[in-house]
């Protein structure tokens, strides 16, 4: 963090040298800033980008917008570089080259995947839903897999996230006129219309508060009691959603529209991704892919952080964890809040993607579906959870309805497979669990425990025999 060195006078005449030295000084400054206050610098870059998009959406383009773009780009690039330098060593040490290469290849494949399918194919739709479920499963994995708190009411956060879109991105509250950073038809309708990013932020705030509220009564409880209390909250939120038509919140407006649903939701808008509509699924795909990558990254970082280790300690032995100085209440509540946040983000996306938010979508079976994903994948193992979520949602939304449905007819049998869909799903759950009780890709720590436990028992047996 030394002062930038003064350039010698002889080089002052050379413009290239001046620019280079300026660049060096700037990089040094930013490095220092990233070292001292990493989150503030990220916030600065993010703020510049938001202001830039705000200008563009609200119609102020021109030189000011271009200048802001350039400024935001430079800031963002410099800050990423500073972070990259700070993390590179740890990254290279922890992540082997093949793993980095694999991640890069997978991300590239993920980005170009939509070009291999038609815009509105069933497979694209199933993939978008599957990615949203991956985000859900990663969120639930924080609560159940990391912190060991069995949560059977995860549907509550899906509901709240989806209702955020319905409340803040449609003409449902017809008496109010709030428009923030929206364009097109949404900017002229009555109701509350926020930019989709702001809706995501609202969903994050609301669901994390809800997560803490749901977490509070469970602090004194043991595992399966936690399950039933979270289940109870999930069901209560479901009942509120169904009966929301009779809950008046003033101005002649109600809380929800019950089973009739709130429709005509604003479509998300992101510059550069093209227009969002249901005949063109690619922008939806890229949006949820980006959200998924972000959540995946946060999950990976959380797992290895101080907080992540505290969660695992609480999961393994609460008493021991507390006596080692882990703040139990804060640790558990952050798990609930963070898990809820991811559920809310995914819920907001699914709400917008389904183009309607009605109370019938928020059933208990949804919580069970997501729970099945993380247990089938391997509780606590991030990659296992991702694969479990992809597998189960493809089975449920693509394989059974789209692919296998013609099978009985081909075999000359006269019945529809959709009648058997959840029987088949249940059968697969039983099969997978009996063949691999620890999940498809168990967490490393758990696998070590299992094998180490057997080895220790074997050693004891040997001792006893001798």
């Amino acid at each position, binding site marked *: 963090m030394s002062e930038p060195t003064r350039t010698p006078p002889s080089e002052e005449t050379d413009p290239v040298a001046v620019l280079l030295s300026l660049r060096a000084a700037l990089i040094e400054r930013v490095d220092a800033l990233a070292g001292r206050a990493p989150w503030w610098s990220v916030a600065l870059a993010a703020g510049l980008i938001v202001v830039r998009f705000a200008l563009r959406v609200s119609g102020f383009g021109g030189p000011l917008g271009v200048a802001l773009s350039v400024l935001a780009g430079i800031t963002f690039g410099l800050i990423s570089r500073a972070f990259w330098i700070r993390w590179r060593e740890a990254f290279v040490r922890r992540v082997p080259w093949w793993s980095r290469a694999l991640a890069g290849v997978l991300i590239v494949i993920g980005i170009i995947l939509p070009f291999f399918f038609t815009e509105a194919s069933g497979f694209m739709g199933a993939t978008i839903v599957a990615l949203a479920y991956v985000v859900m499963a990663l969120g639930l994995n924080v609560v159940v897999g990391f912190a060991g708190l069995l949560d059977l009411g995860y549907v509550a956060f899906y509901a709240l996230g989806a209702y955020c879109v319905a409340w803040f991105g449609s003409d449902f509250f017809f008496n109010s006129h709030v428009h923030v950073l929206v364009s097109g038809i949404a900017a002229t309708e009555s109701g509350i219309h926020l930019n989709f990013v702001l809706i995501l932020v609202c969903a994050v705030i609301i669901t994390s508060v809800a997560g803490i509220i749901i977490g509070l009564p469970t602090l004194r409880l043991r595992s399966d009691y936690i399950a039933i209390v979270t289940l*109870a909250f999930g069901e209560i939120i479901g*009942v509120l959603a169904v009966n929301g038509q009779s809950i008046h919140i003033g101005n002649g407006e109600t809380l929800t529209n019950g089973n009739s649903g709130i429709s005509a939701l604003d479509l998300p808008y992101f510059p550069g991704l093209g227009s969002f509509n249901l005949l063109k699924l690619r922008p939806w795909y890229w949006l949820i892919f980006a959200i998924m990558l972000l959540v995946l990254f946060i999950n990976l970082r959380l797992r290895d952080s101080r907080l992540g280790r505290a969660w695992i300690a609480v999961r393994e032995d609460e008493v021991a964890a507390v006596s080692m100085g882990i703040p139990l209440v804060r640790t558990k509540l952050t798990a609930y809040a963070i898990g809820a946040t991811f559920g809310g983000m995914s819920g907001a996306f699914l709400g917008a993607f389904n183009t309607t938010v009605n109370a019938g979508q928020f059933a208990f079976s949804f919580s069970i579906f997501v729970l099945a994903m993380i247990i089938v994948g391997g509780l606590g193992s991030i990659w296992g959870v991702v694969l479990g979520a992809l597998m189960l949602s493809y089975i449920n939304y693509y394989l059974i309805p789209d692919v296998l449905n013609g099978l009985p007819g081909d075999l000359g049998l006269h019945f529809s497979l959709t009648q058997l869909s959840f029987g088949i799903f249940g059968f697969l759950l*039983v099969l997978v669990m009996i063949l691999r009780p620890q999940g498809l890709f168990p967490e490393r720590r758990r696998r070590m425990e299992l094998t180490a436990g057997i080895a220790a028992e074997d050693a004891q047996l040997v001792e006893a025999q001798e």
Partner: protein
Amino acid sequence: MPEVVARALAVLRRYIGRWGLLVALVALPAYYGIHDLTHGYQAGLHAGHPVIRHDLTQLGFNIFEGLSNGAIWALIAMGYTLVYGIIELINFAHGDVFMIGSFVAAGLWGTLGLGLATGPIGLVAGLLLTLLVCMAVCGSLNVLIERVGYRPLRNAPKLAPLITAVGFSFILQNVGLLWLGGSPQGVNDLIRENDTVFQISGVVIHRADVLAIGVMIPLVLALTWFIGNTRAGRAMRATAQDPEAARLMGINVNNTISLTFLLGGMLAGAAGLVYALYETTVWYFQGFEAGLIAFTAAVMGGIGNVRGAVLGGLIIGCIQELSDSRLGPQWTEAVVFGYLILVMVLRPRGLLGEETREAG
């Protein structure tokens, strides 16, 4: 001053700990009782004018209906609590076993030719036979599920059998869907369930209420006697406390667990028959809803505790009935679960205390 406040808060907390639950449980009936007495309620029409009465008859009727409805939940909840007590598993398939019980009963009546025209002797004999068949079918179904789905996972991570239970629940629901279709099916009202049996100071007791309570009480007594006084019952209690030690004492742990599932399934079968007679409709989703309520009842009473499950079932039945008739059925689920959260906050181990391994 702060010390005084702190002491007052401590006293308050102690009182809430001791009496809070009681107050919470009594609050609902007490409120509506007082409301009925002061404001009155409409009891039918007389010559075109609403008849307003100021007494506790309606409340008594609500509570009695609640008890009889709760008797069914109690029968199912015992199955949950037995299984949880012995292998610490939330047996999600249990509610669907109960649903299969109802379906078997409805199917068997058709086979036996039981209808509205059947005479009383034939009816009683037929219903007894149906009861036995339902109990046998559901008991063996439950044992079969345990054998296929849970026994291979005895040493697996704790949540693995939970997922196989969910899997079996889906499979059984699909069986029910294929069996009787997706919408609720009416069954013959064999016992004319709404006929009045007798009245206690204005509270009308229907046949269905007598049936539900009349089936529940002997079964509960038989079960508690079995667990408390027989060799097999002792084996069950020993296995629940410590399976390893029980095995060392020469108890066949696997058979004991199978026996537990058999008993739970039999109770669910009996509940299935009673439900079909009581509600006179059956459908494939009934097991899921009933299972949720019954599990809530088991937790409310203190999981692993058979008496607690019965108490929890009866209380939930009363809460449901009160909420159904006063607030409207659409709010019932929220009220029941709200009460559950209250119970959990005020008494984290359930009303009568849990009896599981971890509770020691």
